[in-house]
């Protein structure tokens, strides 16, 4: 279930960064990679990202199933890009000229570079989000959000949602077993039967969710949630010098990217 939530509770330099620092890293990195469509830059960012996974002691190999899906999807993105982009210098035709037919489906240099760039951007966005989730304690994140002005009532919603997600997974499984024990199996055969199966799953889950929501709200009200506009915190993320340094660095990178796009960066500095 821990893998369902995603947060891996280990000690690493990345885990120790302030949640807001990591949020800023995520935002600046993804903005840069979306704005600056440069293959070399993408590759550089991806390599740094993979190294950061190492540093954070988050093993990509342990996420085999997710990783396989992500890799297959990124390769598909590449292929589709190559196929739909027809301008640029043609390398070869996938379907050569045979008699009167063809040639068709040209592979161009521009298509390949676009494909690579899109694939890299996809990988960076997905992997950096995964790293963020794996290294950020959601409770500390939500408390940190209150520091930038989000009322704790709303920030706390994140914690509650994560608390109940694994629970609904379990409940769904129990309802399925209860159906099987009564001989109810998903049936193909007419809209009526499909609707019935959906209803038989939806009703018990909905009722159970509503009852959980009720006992949750009673329990929170019963412990003074909303007593005052502020509250105290047992655990708080601490802001260290390295957070300031990382945030500064990330802001510089974003600024550099913007300058590069505007063509204001000296040629020798651009990657």
């Amino acid at each position: 279930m821990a893998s369902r939530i995603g947060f891996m509770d280990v000690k690493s330099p990345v885990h120790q960064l302030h949640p807001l620092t990591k949020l800023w890293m995520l935002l600046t990195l993804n903005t840069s990679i979306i704005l600056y469509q440069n293959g070399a830059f993408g590759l550089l960012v991806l390599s740094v990202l993979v190294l950061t996974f190492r540093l954070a002691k988050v093993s990509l190999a342990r996420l085999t199933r997710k990783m396989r899906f992500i890799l297959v999807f990124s390769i598909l993105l590449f292929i589709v890009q190559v196929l739909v982009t027809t301008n640029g210098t043609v390398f070869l035709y996938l379907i050569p000229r045979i008699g009167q037919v063809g040639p068709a489906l040209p592979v161009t240099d521009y298509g390949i570079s676009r494909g690579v760039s899109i694939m890299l951007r996809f990988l960076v966005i997905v992997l950096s989000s995964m790293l963020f989730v794996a290294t950020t304690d959601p409770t500390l994140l939500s408390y940190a959000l209150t520091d930038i002005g989000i009322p704790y009532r709303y920030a706390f919603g994140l914690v509650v949602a994560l608390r109940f997600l694994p629970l609904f997974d379990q409940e769904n499984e129990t309802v399925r077993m209860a159906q099987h024990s009564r001989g109810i199996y998903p049936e193909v055969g007419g809209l009526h039967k499909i609707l019935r199966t959906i209803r038989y799953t939806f009703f018990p889950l909905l009722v159970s969710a509503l009852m959980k929501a009720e006992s949750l709200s009673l329990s929170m009200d019963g412990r003074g949630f909303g007593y005052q506009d502020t509250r105290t915190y047992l655990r708080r993320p601490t802001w260290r010098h390295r957070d300031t340094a990382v945030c500064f660095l990330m802001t510089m990178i974003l600024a550099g990217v913007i300058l590069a796009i505007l063509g204001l960066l000296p040629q020798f500095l651009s990657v």
Partner: protein
Amino acid sequence: MLEARDVSFSYGGESTVLDSVSMTLERGELVLLTGPTGSGKSTLAKCLAGLIPHVIDGTLSGHLAVEDNDLDSMRISEIARRIALVQQDSEGQLCTLRVSDEVAFGPENFLIPENELAQKVTRSLEEVERPDLLDRATYQLSGGEKQRVAIASMLAFRPDYLILDEPTSSLDPAGTRRIRHVLSNLKSQGMGIICIEHRFERLQSIADRILHLTGDDIVPFSPPPEVGPLAITSSVEQDSDPLVRAESIAYSYGSRQAIQDITIEVDRREVVAIMGDNGSGKTTLLLLLAGLLSPHRGLVYLDSEAIESLPKTVVARKTAVVFQNPNHQIFETTVWREQTLGIDIFELQEEEALGRANKFLDLAGLADTRTRNPFSLSHGQKRRLNISSIMVHEPELLLLDEPFIGQDVEGRKFVQSVIHSTVSRGGSAVVVTHDSQFAAQFCDRLVFIDNGRILLDGMPADVMKQLGKLGRSEYVNRLGDV
């Protein structure tokens, strides 16, 4: 003093739940509140904790006060600071991801200074005798541990009064003993405590008073003579093939081994109780016997045939499982449609099946609720509906998970009569329970599970004797004449 005077309540125009009920609770006093299912015990608890009418809507009249302050004129958070309610569903009342955060939740809201929080958290966990839970993830706790954390999270802000709704219902006997100890300590520290309990004998020894609530009256309670078991017709058919047999089965959830190498047979006409600590693998064993989970190793045979090779509907027809949470197994929109669901699915002979449907609904005391939405029934009623609805297709193997939780005396009788009727048809029943009285008086055999293995298996009286020797005397039935 916490006081309710002439309190009446109804949920939005529906029939009255409480009718002019009065009671008081002093600090340093422990009161047990009993009463049949649906008599309004939980509703009274919510009134006393101020959640009615501050959070839950309905029509309330009468007077509720704490130390002569009218609850009506106080804010809910002010009431909460003095009166805490631990609800029945310990799962639904934990709202954070880590035990330390959960226990700190109340004090944080009440603006307790940050340098005092850690100490309050540790102390509260020590009071429930589980300081080791501090850094655990809340979603990985067992039922008993969740219960303990829920209590600790209330103790952390030092309420004057503590109300607990069936705190022992899903605990194993060892857990019940610990809760008894915890409550007795809190009482001696001057906390006023109300415990709602069906099985009052579990906490009787530390109670100052026992009150009996019937919805319109609340009276001092004197325990009735014990309900005797139905006649045991011990006619176990040991010569024929067993109805269900599991051969060295194992099952694990991820890396956690729930069942490790269990071999068990249940004969026809046999009633088997399965007991063991919370988290020992009892429910998993039940699901494996029902063919709802497939063992990772070993095989389960139903009537000498490998259960995995049988068509699923055949397995469903022969077996019947009743789960712990009734809401997960109610599918239809009226009680009657729920009761007769199996007729359509198993294509039963209609006239006979309808006869059985009527008979068992009547036995369950639900004949008047036919047209009601089953989800609107009380917890105990829902569980009786779960049981009565599976009796329509006359299953041979009954697999019941804690069927007595939330049942009053009448409900217990109903469950026992259902088991009796199955056995007399030549079927058998496997019942997961913490109820040693039931095991001793009603079962042919008692299987004790420990850490996913069978520790003891034999006649209930013998197994209990062994359990006593192994230092697990809390499992030994003291009430019945074993």
